[in-house]
């Protein structure tokens, strides 16, 4: 779309970069305000920030400035380059995730044929960033925390992947736009008006996806690596100021991206009954809004669980992934494959 404008290539690239960063941080800010400041507060029977700006909207600005004005401490024995690079790597993996999510028939960063595969691969890059952070902090406890986080993230990659495989089998394509189209064109008991969001047929897969993404985002009940800072320092301890802000923004932005992924794979993405999957002005205008609404629903469930449950111990976490989620998701794949061929 930007290529249609008649401006030099460097200007186009600059616009794209600005839009990408704006989208990533904007979504993080929206999530921080809606879920962390307001929904969490109301679930806890309190009001949340109210003083800065109407209903505390400017509190985000205040918190941002607070982080930016902190002293940039790098531990003496830390590996400076790796220490500085770790938050950037995590942020890169987040931005890469945003590339494939279709917001409408034409609004997509890159409509890759292997969209799903690419998205899951990009999300696992963050593990490298976490290991870099844990190692470069020159802190025994950061290293242990980083290793534990990496172990958890790798363990929960598998159920995430396997849950999505069921969707791929049913849709017949790895491309995310293709999956949205498959849900739009599907039928429920012969009724084509509502399409067939895969949440109906892949309910187990959706549940596994939500649990696995909760663990991928290190949110409660799977936040032992971060809350490890009760007892042992987590991998983020030595980071302060802007570097910590980058970690935090990428965590919230990744939540947005995973919610978008869940909405696209299971809830029908940007499609709404009446919209045209091949293009058209209406789809391009309404599509992003519909996708946003679905993202908020999925994210609400993710944060709702985060605020309500205590955390699992590290070994219980791993047992749950390996002994419960993976067999369940394998069974889901088998059933889906059999039914796909049979029906």
């Amino acid at each position: 779309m930007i290529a249609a404008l008649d401006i030099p290539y460097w200007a186009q690239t600059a616009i794209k970069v600005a839009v990408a960063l704006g989208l990533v941080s904007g979504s993080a800010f929206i999530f921080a305000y809606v879920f962390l400041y307001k929904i969490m507060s109301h679930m806890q029977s309190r009001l949340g920030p109210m003083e800065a700006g109407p209903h505390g909207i400017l509190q985000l600005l205040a918190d941002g400035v607070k982080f930016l004005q902190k002293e940039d401490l790098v531990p003496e024995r830390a590996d400076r380059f790796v220490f500085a690079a770790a938050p950037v790597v995590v942020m890169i993996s987040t931005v890469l995730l945003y590339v494939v999510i279709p917001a409408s028939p034409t609004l997509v960063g890159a409509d890759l044929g292997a969209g799903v595969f690419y998205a899951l691969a990009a999300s696992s890059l963050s593990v490298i960033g976490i290991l870099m952070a844990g190692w470069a902090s020159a802190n025994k406890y950061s290293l242990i925390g980083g290793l534990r986080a990496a172990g958890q993230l790798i363990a929960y990659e598998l159920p995430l992947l396997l849950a999505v495989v069921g969707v791929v089998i049913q849709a017949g394509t790895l491309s995310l736009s293709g999956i949205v189209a498959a849900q739009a064109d599907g039928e429920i008991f012969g009724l084509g008006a509502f399409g067939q969001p895969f949440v109906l047929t892949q309910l187990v897969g959706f549940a596994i996806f939500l649990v696995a993404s909760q663990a991928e985002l290190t949110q409660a009940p799977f936040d032992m690596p971060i809350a490890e800072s009760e007892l042992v320092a987590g991998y983020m301890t030595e980071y302060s100021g802007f570097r910590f802000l980058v970690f935090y923004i990428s965590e919230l932005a990744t939540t947005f991206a995973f919610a978008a992924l869940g909405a696209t794979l299971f809830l029908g993405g940007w499609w709404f009954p009446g919209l045209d999957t091949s293009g058209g002005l209406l789809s391009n205008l309404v599509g992003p809004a519909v996708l946003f609404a679905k993202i908020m629903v999925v994210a609400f469930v993710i944060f709702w669980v985060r605020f309500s449950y205590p955390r699992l111990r590290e070994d219980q976490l791993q047992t749950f992934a390996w002994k419960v989620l993976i067999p369940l998701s394998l069974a889901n794949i088998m059933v889906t494959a059999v039914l796909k061929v049979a029906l």
Partner: protein
Amino acid sequence: MAQLPGLIKGLGVTFRTMLKPAVTIPYPHYKETPAPRARGVIALKEENCTVCMLCARSCPDWCIYIEGHKTKAPPRRAGGKPRTVSLLDRFDIDYSLCMYCGICVEVCPFDALFWSPEYEYSEPRIAELLHDKDRLGQWMETVPEPPALEAGAEVKGRGKA
């Protein structure tokens, strides 16, 4: 997975709480009125004070500073002797030390000290937390009437409440 209902019911609790209004009272805009007996600040009724020093002596923190002098007042009836009265020169309560225990108020035999529920007297400098005689006298306006007692309490001189 038999415990699944427990997990779901827990989610229900937080969801229901989210729908109910929050209990926070946004302080500077809305203020809760404290109970009439709330121990906010001590007020001094100077005309009742006879400089007996009981309050200063019984304060666990020794935060009351009293100075007084004796003078002769005119006799109550014509033809009587002039009486000696003690007058206050200085009566300071240091609220940076005060424990808000109320022993001074209780121990005063002449009802010169009263509790008031006022609590908004924070100062930017600790030295200004020393309230002198005049300031303590100003707090008297905020002293409420003692609340009526619960049924079954014995009210002195009037039988049961």
